[in-house]
């Protein structure tokens, strides 16, 4: 097969999946602890803006990343305050966060940078660019250099961090003490409380980690993928990450699979435009773009296995007795 095609699709897939992965892992941590997180979109947007604004002003990647993580954590903790401490509706809180993010990022953007909501472009040396410089383009005729080189090695550090995070989250949940407690609190908070641990404390812990990952996800968009922030640039990625998390049944490894699948579909969508498939004709680009959503609905409808959520998900914990 055409190694240039494979290489570029592979590279595209990994690049598109990276922010999805980070967001989806954030969602996994929050929801496995029992807190619905519809605000992934908003937090990613906040983080993207914070990273772009800070990086362009301070000319420092580190500050950009820190700002993004800090802002996303604040948003997560706010969600926690509304839902965990005050037993507010978790869905409404997430929706509110998304609205505030969509509005505030543009308001501040216009007020501070006067470019219609865009932040000033970030210099190339502040941005996160490819670690291994030689593989920017697939090379025709060279199978290894193309597929492995361009496909796997041509990415910026956040892409690799994203995949590392999958392993980290898996290890955290399955092999560490706080991870065990997090898993328990999302299934049977009463039991956790009876065993002497604080349900609130555990949920806030999860939300904090969620904030860090959302911060990284947002940073990817403005420090790695693009060079500046533009209004609504997340374009529904937070919801695709949500879909991937559900499709992956709230487990890190299947979620990785889902993110890769959705990333692959995105990579194919562009390439299939105008292409006539045998027997089917031209596949509308909107259909390919809609596939992640369609697949999630099909899964939820129980047609391809069932998605069983953590038992205490969405229910505010009330201490009885």
């Amino acid at each position: 097969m055409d190694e240039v095609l494979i290489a570029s699709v592979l590279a595209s897939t990994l690049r598109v999946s990276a922010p999805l992965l980070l967001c989806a892992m954030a969602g996994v941590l929050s929801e496995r602890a029992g807190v619905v997180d519809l605000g992934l979109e908003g937090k990613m947007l906040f983080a993207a803006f914070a990273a772009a604004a800070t990086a362009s002003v301070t000319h420092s990647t580190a500050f950009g990343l820190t700002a993004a993580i800090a802002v996303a954590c604040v948003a997560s903790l706010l969600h926690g305050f509304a839902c965990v401490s005050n037993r507010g509706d978790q869905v409404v809180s997430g929706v509110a966060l998304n609205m505030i993010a969509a509005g505030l990022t543009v308001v501040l953007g216009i007020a501070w940078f006067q470019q219609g909501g865009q932040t000033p472009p970030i210099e190339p040396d502040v941005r996160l660019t490819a670690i291994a410089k030689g593989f920017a383009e697939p090379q025709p005729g060279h199978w290894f250099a193309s597929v492995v080189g361009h496909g796997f090695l041509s990415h910026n550090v956040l892409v690799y961090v994203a995949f590392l995070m999958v392993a980290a989250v898996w290890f955290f949940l399955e092999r560490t003490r706080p991870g065990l407690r997090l898993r328990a609190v999302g299934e049977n908070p009463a039991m956790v409380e009876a065993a002497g641990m604080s349900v609130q404390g555990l949920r806030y812990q999860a939300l904090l980690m969620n904030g860090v990952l959302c911060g990284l996800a947002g940073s990817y968009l403005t420090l790695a993928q693009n060079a500046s922030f533009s209004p609504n640039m997340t374009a529904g990625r937070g919801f695709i990450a949500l879909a991937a998390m559900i499709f992956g049944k709230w487990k890190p490894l299947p979620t990785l699979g889902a993110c890769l699948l959705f990333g692959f579909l995105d990579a194919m969508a562009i390439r299939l435009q105008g292409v006539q498939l045998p027997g089917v004709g031209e596949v509308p680009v909107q259909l390919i773009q809609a596939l992640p959503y369609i697949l999630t609905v099909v899964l939820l409808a129980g047609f391809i296995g069932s998605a069983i959520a953590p038992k205490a998900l969405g229910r505010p914990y009330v201490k009885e007795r």
Partner: protein
Amino acid sequence: MSQPLQLPRWIDIGLLPLWNLAIALAVAGLVVMVIGHSPWQALTVLLNGALGSVRGLGYSLYYATTFIFTGLAVAVAIHAGLFNIGGEGQATLGGVGVALVALWLGAKLPAVVMLPLLVVASAVFGMLWAALPAYLQAWRGSHIVITTIMFNFLAAGLNGYLLVNWLRPAGSMAVESAEFAESARMPALHQIAAALGYELPSSPLNLSLVIALIACVFVGWFLWKSAAGYAVRAVGSAPRAAHYAGIRPRAQVLIAMAISGALAGMVGINEISGVQGKLTLDFVAGAGFTGIAVSLMGRNHPIGIILASLLFGVLYQGGVEVSFELQGFSREMVVTAQGLIVLFSGAMATVSAPLFARIYVAVKGGR
């Protein structure tokens, strides 16, 4: 042992929501200060722009019309115990329905037949888009919040596909459908006024407002007067009691969501038939989510929804004016304020309740 808070009704329905609203607006005012403007100046320009002229008022009411539809949609679903976040997608489909009927029949039928037909089309299309997630929830247990969010994206995709591949006139670059015939256009208020001999500045306000108000009456009747509404409210409030009473929860979920979707779909007659006169991309522009804010503020009651819709209409229209007049001020301030309102009136609605309870008890004790 948890003690349930017993706040008197006037605090619960009147004071607490107003307080939450005040906090939200105060925080919004803080944001305004952060970006270097005076909240009072912004507020003055806003109110002037929204209410200070007949034209501004017209715009405010036009926005309010859409919010009444989406607010009612959320309210009906909430009374059935469901959270319909799919208003955005259902409204989109309503617009698609309006466009399809208008383009197909608009030139052939007079307005007197066309307009009711468009109302029906918008309702039916919106209803279908809500019925599918409702069926999945009731019969297959799929969480309606997630499915309706997915359906929002699917609706946008469907709209885009139809526009690009079917409805765009040949040779046109704009992603829009052809323009509707005159008979498929909801008459604007200033047009009606002109026909009656009055002169009104032109604004997008059109007959849809009347339909929205009729919808309010319908929802009020449906929820509290009709037999179906009794069943829906029972299921939403006490599903086990409803089962005991011989009411079938699944059917009620479907009915409530169908009506909810139909209401959201009717946004199509305001935006597509009334204002645009053609199908466009993203004409809903977040109104589905504003509907959530409106319903929460309006305590899920038609009267409250009308008041809340007026508030948001004013906010939106005023917000546009402010963004013209004040440098560095953007329309998105309104979206931010809306988000803050949803946060404080929705998710954090009961945060201040203990405070009020203590004050109330202290004041009562002091007498």
